[in-house]
């Protein structure tokens, strides 16, 4: 297999992305998603398969490799035998969840395309019916699930021995389209999120936001076209902000206080902006009408990972019962739970942005903690504004079911 130059090529590009993920050279969930998609596209275009399962396996293996690149993405290996029953339970301080999500999404699309393609061509085999299935039919989108499972069981017409590639040939163009769709979604995500910003922000409102989230940024700017309002930006130390993605993060300039970047860009867009230190969030909250946050990943229970500081803001907001709104593209939907319900991310950065390396004597005596993300429980959130409509935290679960296939939750 590996001898095949195509495979080798695939392996290489996958490895390349993997190592760049591991080195944190791919920056921002969207960026990661895009790159993953690029890789998948090439993989699919090169892959040789004679039935859908082979293809799925190829893609899964790629996905697994990429997710593995971020070690925290995986839990103990011996669980995987149950993957298909396992509706996702691992979390993760993985640097980028969007990688896994993208793969899942693509898999989902591929299956759909496959089914539409095979509609009629292969008579849907008689549905075997058992109580177990009956139970699991409780899930939405059962029809596909059923068919697919069977498809998996009965040997497919396509893989006929004399011309194994025929299947691939017929299916590939469709698949490419499918991937392209995902691509387009990512391309347009910001616009779609901000398209009805004006319905969420009203004149004279005071909005509090944290750090630098591209999504929130575009959202607020969009709102500014129709509304006159004020934004308070908390600096959110020491959050990283990668203001340039050039040569794939190799040169990454980060400022230690994301909020500053945000404030600059918002004010330059003509929004009256106040930059405040994190410490003053509580003091100012009593005057804030709405807290708008970006998400790093939206979790299956409707909670989310967001830049550290989000939890403080959200809790403070609750103290003044100020609504908390989250702007995030659906590629951030992650069919995973926050294990341990523990402190937000298990992802900790380097201390240098908290306590300078040059503070020589302190460095040796003091432990420095610098988490990237907070875990924000669903109870603290009021709404998610996504590129496909607005959702309450409670319906995220269903959303996930619709977006991904259950057996992909564990790649």
């Amino acid at each position: 297999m590996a001898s095949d130059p195509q495979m080798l090529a695939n392996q290489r590009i996958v490895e390349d992305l993997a190592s760049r993920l591991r080195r944190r050279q791919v920056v921002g969930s969207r960026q990661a998603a895009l790159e993953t998609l690029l890789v998948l596209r090439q993989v699919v275009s090169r892959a040789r398969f004679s039935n859908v399962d082979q293809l799925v396996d190829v893609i899964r293996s790629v996905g697994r490799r990429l997710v593995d690149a971020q070690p925290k993405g995986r839990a103990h290996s011996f669980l995987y035998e149950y993957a298909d029953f396992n509706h996702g339970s691992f979390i993760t301080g993985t640097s980028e969840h969007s990688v896994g999500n993208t793969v899942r999404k693509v898999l989902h699309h591929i299956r759909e395309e496959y089914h539409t393609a095979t509609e009629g061509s292969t008579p849907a085999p008689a549905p075997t019916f058992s109580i177990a299935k009956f139970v699991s039919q409780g899930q939405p989108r059962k029809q596909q699930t059923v068919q697919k499972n069977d498809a998996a069981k009965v040997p497919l017409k396509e893989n006929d021995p004399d011309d194994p590639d025929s299947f691939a040939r017929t299916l590939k163009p469709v698949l490419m389209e499918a991937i392209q769709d995902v691509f387009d979604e990512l391309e347009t995500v910001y616009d779609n999120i901000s398209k009805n910003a004006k319905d969420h922000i009203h004149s004279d409102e005071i909005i509090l936001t944290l750090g630098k989230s591209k999504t929130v940024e575009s959202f607020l700017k969009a709102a500014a076209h129709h509304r006159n309002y004020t934004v308070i930006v908390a600096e959110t130390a020491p959050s990283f902000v990668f203001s340039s993605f050039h040569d794939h993060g190799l040169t990454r300039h980060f400022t230690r206080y994301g909020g500053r970047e945000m404030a600059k860009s918002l004010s330059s867009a003509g929004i009256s902006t106040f930059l405040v230190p994190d410490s003053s969030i509580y003091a100012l909250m009593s005057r804030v009408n709405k807290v708008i946050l970006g998400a790093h990943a939206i979790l299956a229970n409707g909670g989310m990972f967001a830049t550290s500081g989000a939890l403080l803001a959200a809790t403070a907001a609750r103290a003044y019962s100020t609504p908390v709104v989250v702007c995030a593209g659906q590629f951030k939907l992650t069919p995973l739970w926050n294990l341990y319900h523990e402190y937000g991310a298990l992802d900790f950065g380097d201390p240098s942005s908290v306590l300078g390396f040059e503070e020589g004597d302190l460095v040796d005596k003091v432990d420095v903690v610098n988490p990237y993300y907070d875990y924000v429980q669903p109870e603290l959130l009021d709404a998610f504004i996504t590129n496909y409509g607005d959702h309450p935290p409670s319906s995220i679960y269903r959303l996930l079911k619709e977006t991904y296939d259950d057996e992909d939750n564990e790649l």
Partner: protein
Amino acid sequence: MSEPSKDGPPTPLSSSQPSQKSMTKAERRELQERQRAAKAAQKQQQGQGQGQASSSASSRSKAQGAPQKKSESGRPRASSSAAPTSSRDVGGAARDGSGGIDSEGPKTRGLRIFSHFGLPKTSGHQVKGDIHPAIIRLGLQFSEFKICGANARCIAMLTAFKTVIQDYTTPAHNTLSRHLMTYLSPQISHLVAARPMSVTMGNAIRQLKLEISGSDIDLPEQDAKDALCHIIDNYIRDRIIIADEVIEDLAVKKIKDGDVVMTYARSSLVEKILIRAHALNKRFSVIVLDSRPLLEGKTLLRTLTSTTPPISCTYALLPALPSLIKEVSVVLVGAHSLHTNGSVYSRAGTAMVAMLAKEHSVPVMVCCETYKFSESIMLDAFGKNELAPLKFSPPEAPKPHSNLEVLDPLYDSTPPTCITAVVTEVGLIPPTSISSIPLALGKTSL
């Protein structure tokens, strides 16, 4: 509360002004100034060609023109502080300026909300009336944040007053008990101009007034002065020094082996408590949380780690709090002042620490001498707050311009619900019952 800065060089000029009225006056001044600045900005509207910089610049000159006119004095400054100060004024003016830019609605309103924070203090502000050199020095130390923290400021002030009193001579046809206060008031207002008065100072001053007015007319002047100084000494000793010791004893009892103590920023009192606990070889570790603008935590960190053996410390910025709170066994924080409704006015950020601690049912102990009690109700820290001077905002932070304003509030108020106990020299008490302590109300004479 905050007398806006009408600045010039610290060259003694003579136009005294009672502190009592300063409040209202301050506001009137600001109002005028805002209108002036707004006009300036509108002028900019016409000649919009050249960008923000010039606009804010000129509006700055206007804004500062105002105070100058009021206080006829040149502009040379203590060069050290000049740079930050002036640029800060830009902010101040620009804030109003942008108010002008679109006079209709939100921005002006958004701005007006914060306007009462008052223009930030500029250092080396103008001296009105004959101010005692000791006070002038103190004023500088205050405005430069050389002396910072409720206790430190109060003690510094009282000691300064001692010298003032000693150097004071009652004019003819006047009695010390009557005149001394009128002599002190400009001194006080000078300090207030340097930096808004802390509750502690207020209380101390009230006591002092009481004593002065109460001082015996027949007493020979020198004796009377000595008496006052003695009283001041006692005040410092009883209400602060001793009080602190008592509080240390009480608080240390609550730190047990294996505890993880979390504190925020730096309170002199908390620092002492931790050191003491360490001296009693309690095996505990400390988590120091910190945040801009002042980043006082690092100072604390140094003190704690310079002990032998160093106290094991963890250092993190405020946003990391959720990751740490789980393992904390007690939160110790200091306070700036304590209010009738039990809310604690303290370094900005304290409220959130307390809030999250409550979430995770971690006890929160506020260490605070009774003389920090203020007989007012504080609902949120928004109404009454103070801004850190711009010199504390790091170089890489964006410079304020018409749309962007940088606010560094110094305080916030923690609602009583988030506070488990207040450790005072009269014992551990729930925050709400502070008002029932006679000592706090200053019922007892010094």
